[in-house]
């Protein structure tokens, strides 16, 4: 059986932190699986793309430095979709079945949460500007974030506490101090959870039912449910498609096969070399996304500008909803069951439209930058899988809500 790991740490056991001697022990012994889009010095950080084949990371990503500092053990690189876009070509989450305690999955449109839904574990996408992107081989700089996938929220919280916070090398991070990420008590009687009516539009009957069941479940746990409206909810997908593809088209402009990546033969000049090598380097699916981005950039710039305006409006509208309810309840990502064997090629959606349909309930958080949490269903079906969100930088409280919900009334985990 093929492992989900494409590269295993050559050091079989934890060797201590290479950065400044002793680790602080906060994550000692925690086995972390990484996608090869997260730079680990001397590891093949190929980000799932032929365009980066042969590229070896020169430095640790900030996230990796902090994991090492806390004493975590980097287990290895998993297989991943090309630049982490969608879930095809890899088995995000599968490493948890191969001895990893947590897996870091780049979340561009909801990949970490969809992977968790597939493996029935939890996933957390932190607020944008909370976790450093230095050393992350990205695709959509204004939307992507390192997602955390693990069976339990305690591990996710400790890992988030470790990797979050200001980084002098990433200017897109907050200048202020890291918001409080510690656990807090949740009082259901004093807590309102908002439900965005339009988030259920267009869902399959099954997902709609699950969505309503999750609302009833929250009520049964004593929370006040409040119905909210965001008529433009469907625009999240459109805005993501336009801005995301334009950013991706720019971000991949640097993959020219000059310094790394294979050069296609037969070119008579540098321009031909670029064209042929880039044509050969990117997969068909990613290429359709990049071409779409180039189209908006070069031929429909006004559509891109409109998308930027709508995005700003959506950010404001979501922030306003978060003033009316402390948390938001959102549907589970479209369920794609895991394949029969680990490492088998995943069923990749055939088109961009199908991919966007798969992430219709998750990509709002990538557009606005707010945090999002996926909680898995219980085996008996009393609690279906669902997503929770909150205002930007409410990460600590959102995880506490998740921990409250995963434990029963007596404080035991379900």
């Amino acid at each position: 059986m093929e492992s989900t790991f494409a590269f295993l740490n050559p050091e079989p056991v934890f060797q201590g932190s290479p950065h400044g001697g002793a680790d602080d022990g906060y994550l000692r012994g925690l086995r972390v699986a990484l996608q090869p889009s997260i730079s680990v010095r001397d590891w093949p950080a190929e980000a799932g793309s032929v365009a980066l084949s042969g590229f070896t990371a020169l430095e640790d990503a900030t996230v990796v430095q902090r994991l090492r500092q806390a004493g975590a053990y980097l287990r290895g690189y998993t297989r991943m979709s090309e630049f982490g876009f969608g879930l095809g070509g890899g088995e995000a989450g599968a490493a948890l079945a191969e001895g990893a305690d947590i897996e870091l999955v780049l979340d561009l449109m909801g990949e970490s949460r969809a992977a968790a839904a597939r493996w029935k574990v939890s996933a957390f996408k932190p607020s944008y500007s909370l976790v450093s992107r230095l050393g992350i081989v990205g695709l959509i700089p204004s939307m992507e974030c390192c997602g955390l996938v693990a069976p339990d929220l305690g591990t996710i919280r400790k890992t988030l506490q470790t990797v979050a916070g200001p980084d002098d090398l990433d200017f897109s991070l907050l200048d202020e101090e890291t918001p409080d990420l510690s656990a807090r008590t949740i009082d259901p009687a004093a807590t309102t959870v908002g439900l965005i009516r339009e988030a259920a539009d267009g869902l399959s009957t099954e997902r709609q039912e699950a969505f309503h069941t999750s609302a009833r479940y929250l009520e049964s746990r004593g929370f006040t449910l409040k119905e909210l409206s965001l008529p433009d909810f469907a625009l999240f997908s459109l805005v993501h498609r336009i801005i995301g593809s334009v950013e991706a088209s720019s971000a991949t402009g640097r993959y020219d096969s000059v310094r790394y990546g294979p050069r296609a033969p037969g070119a008579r000049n540098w321009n031909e070399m670029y064209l042929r090598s880039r044509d050969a380097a990117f997969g068909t699916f990613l290429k359709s996304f990049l071409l779409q981005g180039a189209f908006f950039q070069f031929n429909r710039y006004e559509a891109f500008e409109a998308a930027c305006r709508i995005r700003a409006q959506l950010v404001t509208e979501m922030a306003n909803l978060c003033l009316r309810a402390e948390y938001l309840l959102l549907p589970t990502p479209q369920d794609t069951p895991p394949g029969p064997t680990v490492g088998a090629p995943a069923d990749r959606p055939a088109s961009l439209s199908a991919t966007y349909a798969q992430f219709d309930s998750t990509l709002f958080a990538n557009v606005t930058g707010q945090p999002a949490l996926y909680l898995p269903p219980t085996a008996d079906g009393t609690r279906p899988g669902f997503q929770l969100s909150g205002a930007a930088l409410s990460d600590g409280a959102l995880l506490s809500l998740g921990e409250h919900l995963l434990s029963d009334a007596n404080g035991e985990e379900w």
Partner: protein
Amino acid sequence: MDYEAVVGLEIHVELNCATKMFCDCPNRPGDEPNINVCPTCLWLPGALPRLSEQALEKAALLCLALGAELQPLCAFDQKVYYYPDLPKGYQLSQAHLPLSRGGAIDITGEDGAPRRLRIHHIHMEEDVAKLVHEMEGRTPIGLVDFNRAGTPLVEIVTEPDFRTPHEAMEFLKALRTQIRYGGASECSMENGTMRADANISIRPRGTTQMNTKVEVKNMNSVRHVGDAIAYEIERQTASVESGEPVVLHTRLWDPDKKVTSPMRAKFEGPCVPDPSVPVIRLSGEWIAEMRARLPEMPTVRAERLATDYGLAPDEALTVSADPQVADFFEALAAQEIEPRTALHWLTTQLLPAVKDTRQELSVCRVTPARLGALLKMMAAGKINANAAREVLTRMFHTDDTPEAIVAAQGFTQVSDPDALGAMVQQVLDEQPAAVADYRGGQVKALGFLVGRVMQASGGKANPKVIRELLTDRLSAAE
């Protein structure tokens, strides 16, 4: 038909920052190739840009020095194009929200009337890598030097206010002076720290339409800019008069042949906001702090120099044009050197000598204190002007005091009438014709006789004393 030109300039200025614009690599593009590079300026996967605080400060000083208005909000965009000098496929520049808007430079037109030439906006951008074309055996190869990639630039875009080559040249000279004052750049077109491109179109004089323009590049001196514009006006006029319309394209100036010729256009795409460099908000306090850092600007200084030291307006402008020269002048004047003497020695003796010895005024051995000491000796009659020039030449090669040089070389002026009397008498005896001329009313002959005595003294005689002795004796014998 009578045509007039409509010209706008785009000027790139390299900021004299310690580091590149988005990383900590040294801003030294001239070093051994590909030494000053890192993952950020090579744009390796996972690298992030970090805007240099110093680049922002220098760019802001430059804007303020040109009277431009810093914008409370500015942001970087990606100028998308594919070329080997740009490994990430886009250049970080400011297309939508520039650092400053407005600003102007006042010059004197050819007719002597004042002209105000406006600046449209100024934006920051990173420079790209340098391409070097060589031959490897018989195969042409292209080499890329990334030392220049990411070095900090600003681009100054003017309004199409220029009508003549003269205006463009005067504008560039004044612009250079003001930027140097701000301390943001050396602005040398010869060394490539300032590069100007011109957008040129023509129209029938008296009309206001804007016609198709031609962009001209590759002028590396102020004079070339004037020559290229003049050439292009003539070329376009001839073209239009022969019925050929002007087409939008870019041309290169050939300084040897003094012509422009079309160049292949670089493919250039759109400008999209960059998601990795955060938007920049400039607070009123920060802008005020930058303004406070700006020194007295050249035109203001010229007025003060004229008032305080009695310089003529054009002399004051010449001195204030270069902050180093103005500083030197004021340092001399502060030692109670008579201002006109200071000006004369600075402009006719020191500056040409500095240029000849290829030195910089600010770092050369002749400091204001040393030149001041020399001029004081001259004012006190200890040496004459000839000797002072000799001493000055030597001062470039030694750190000895002017007094020591004078003593060692025996330049001390001879002013003793007794010592000079014999020499004067000998010359009078030897030159009866000149003596007769003088007595016959030809006053010029006195100068000749003074020269002869100077020669006899080996250049050390005090000319004033000789003149007195000669006049005395010539009139006494009558």
